[in-house]
């Protein structure tokens, strides 16, 4: 399921397409930078593979696990462009963005395990990773609910007089939420440097794009009605992701104008882990296999770097085994970490109570016996 605007590229043609490799932002990449991008994508995938196997053991995790596998190039490519005053916020399929922003596998895995050493002390879970010190603002569970927050973060950057932006990610299933439309209107009206990134993986849970959204050309083109610049990106090509996203970032930094980007991508697993119908239900197994075979972003980047003479099988195996080891060590760290204490249920609710300020000591804040 590709977005209608995106050309149907294959692995072979991509390797021969120099256009985006030649973009200025990509020409700046050293061989090491390119390997780092590969490493980041592989780390995200290995982290999630280990998370999945631990989820399936049925003892360490509860609830949801929305896997990003297949989409790694989107978070990796876009976040690789960000500077000190640029921010990131996303929805619940957020492990990739968190790692790409520099969060450690340990704190992320421990969060999945509900442990006190998790990034949110075991209070947020899979959908709610946060690292404000790395300009990473979550991890949000309600579809489209983060779109006004991303607007607000970008507004805050502008209010403080900083040259920055906020990348606000969402799935194709979020584009029909009213909050997103209201946010686009405000973003354009007030010249707010927010970049909305629709990661179009073709399915909002079990409902395909064609069954969920009405549009003329593509989802991003709806932005035209709000007088917002938009573009469509082939997400399997890191060069294209970086080149086109950089244009949006420049627009945000230099003109304080928003952009809507639709990045065509694909998830190999279900909406969450418990999605029995993702294979042979709402989509064919053949479709999944075709994407894995012909459109895998890691494989394509690997081919690119091999063609460019940067990557050998040996280097790749080293990158992969290091990532695997890091993920397994994170699972061990998570398993051995302590649970939060029952008393921790009541911390992190109110700032003033946590900090034991006079305000926090005045009046009753909790209503247990």
């Amino acid at each position, binding site marked *: 399921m590709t977005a209608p605007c995106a050309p149907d590229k294959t692995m072979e043609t991509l390797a021969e397409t120099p256009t985006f490799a030649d973009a200025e932002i990509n020409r700046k990449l050293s061989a090491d930078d390119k390997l780092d991008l590969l490493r980041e994508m592989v780390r995200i995938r290995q982290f999630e593979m280990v998370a999945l196997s631990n989820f399936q053991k049925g003892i360490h995790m509860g609830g949801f696990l929305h896997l990003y596998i297949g989409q790694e190039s989107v978070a990796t490519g876009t976040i690789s462009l960000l500077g000190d005053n640029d*921010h990131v*916020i996303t929805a619940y399929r957020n492990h990739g963005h968190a790692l790409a922003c520099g969060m450690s596998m340990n704190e992320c895995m421990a969060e999945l395990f509900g442990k006190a050493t*998790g*990034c*949110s*002390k*075991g*209070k*947020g879970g899979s959908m*709610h990773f*946060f*690292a*404000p*010190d790395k300009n990473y*603002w*979550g*991890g*949000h*569970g*309600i579809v489209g*609910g*983060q*779109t*006004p*927050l*991303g*607007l*607000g*973060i*970008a*507004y*805050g*950057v502008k*209010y*403080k007089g900083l040259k920055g932006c906020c990348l606000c990610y969402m799935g194709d299933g979020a584009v029909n939420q*009213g*909050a997103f439309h*209201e*946010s686009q*209107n*405000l973003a354009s*009206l007030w010249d707010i440097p927010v970049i909305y990134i629709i990661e179009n993986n073709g399915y909002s849970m079990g409902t395909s794009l064609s069954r969920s959204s009405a549009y003329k050309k593509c989802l991003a083109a709806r932005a035209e009605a709000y007088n917002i610049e938009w573009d469509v990106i082939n997400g399997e090509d890191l060069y294209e992701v970086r080149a086109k996203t950089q244009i949006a970032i420049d627009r945000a930094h230099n003109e304080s104008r928003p952009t809507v980007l639709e990045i065509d991508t694909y998830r190999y697993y279900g909406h969450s882990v418990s999605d029995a119908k993702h294979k042979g239900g709402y989509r064919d197994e053949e479709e999944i296999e075709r994407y894995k075979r012909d459109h895998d972003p890691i494989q394509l980047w690997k081919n690119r770097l091999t063609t460019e003479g940067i990557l050998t099988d040996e280097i790749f195996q080293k990158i992969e085994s290091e990532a695997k080891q890091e993920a397994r060590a994170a699972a061990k760290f998570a398993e051995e970490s302590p649970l939060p204490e029952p008393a921790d249920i009541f*911390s*992190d*609710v*109110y*700032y*003033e109570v*946590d*900090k034991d300020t*006079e*305000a926090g000591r*005045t*009046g*009753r*804040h*909790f*209503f247990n*016996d």
Partner: protein
Amino acid sequence: MALIEYREALNQAFAEEIERDPNVVLLGEEVAEYDGAYKVTRGLWKKYGSKRVADTPISEAAFIGMGVGAAMLGVRPVMELMFWSFCTVAYDQIVNNAGQIRYMSGGLINCPIVLRGPANGGTNVGATHSHTPENWLAAIPGLKVVCPATAYDAKGLMKTAIRDNDPVMFMENTTLYGEKWEVPEEEYLIPLGKADIKREGSDISLIAHGRSALIALKAAEVLASEHNINAEVLDLRSIRPLDEEAILNTVRKTHRVVLVDENKPFCAVSAQVTTLIQEKAFDDLDAPIHRVCSLDAPQIYSPELEKLQLPTVERVVQKVLSMA
């Protein structure tokens, strides 16, 4: 002390806080160029400019959510809902984002935002515009809720709310904006979580918040002059945090309680206070706790009938007399 309107007291609080802290911004529908739908923000846009005071489109989900996002980054937005009834349109942003962000981030992010506007019936605007959602919002751990009844309380609580580092839901009242009370010239703050005895008494406690505290005061006058009953009136002022000590103290003093509450009765603020009293002061009670709430139906438009739907002085007096 100067006698000023409730709206003017709030206006002074905004001006003082805008001047004190460069991160304070006022946002909302018609708060700037129009001077506020109820003139609460009159003159502030002209004085402080569009960066500090700005009009938003009618788009509560986006602008409230934008305020929450900005607050996460350290801006301190004070956002007007033209009616608190419209919070339903932005409920996800208020409950899931403002209310949960600190918890879900394990305390890494806080959200110093104030959402404010009128929350009351009695103006014949029908069911959609007459909600009193202090109980809906106080039910969310992570949110704070205050309901000032007087200009003095409104100013002191607003200044505290703006400086508080948690999200504060500030409930005003269209029928009180034009009423005047004494407000000192010098700066003062009123802490959240502190109730106020608005009238000392010994025979019965009338516990209320918002405009209902004023109804209770009027009822207390009638009880004193016509029935020789000396009622104490405790104005909660702040719903969450709640001044439990003040509640228990008045119960221990009078041994009888009528709660006056503009909420509809089911899961009302007064229901929570009732449960608290019976848990902690059961032995001090000489009679069952009674409540006077808004009548339990959607708010009626018909002006004469809406008067009856709200807690009235007569209903409070009758309820107290029925307990004798």
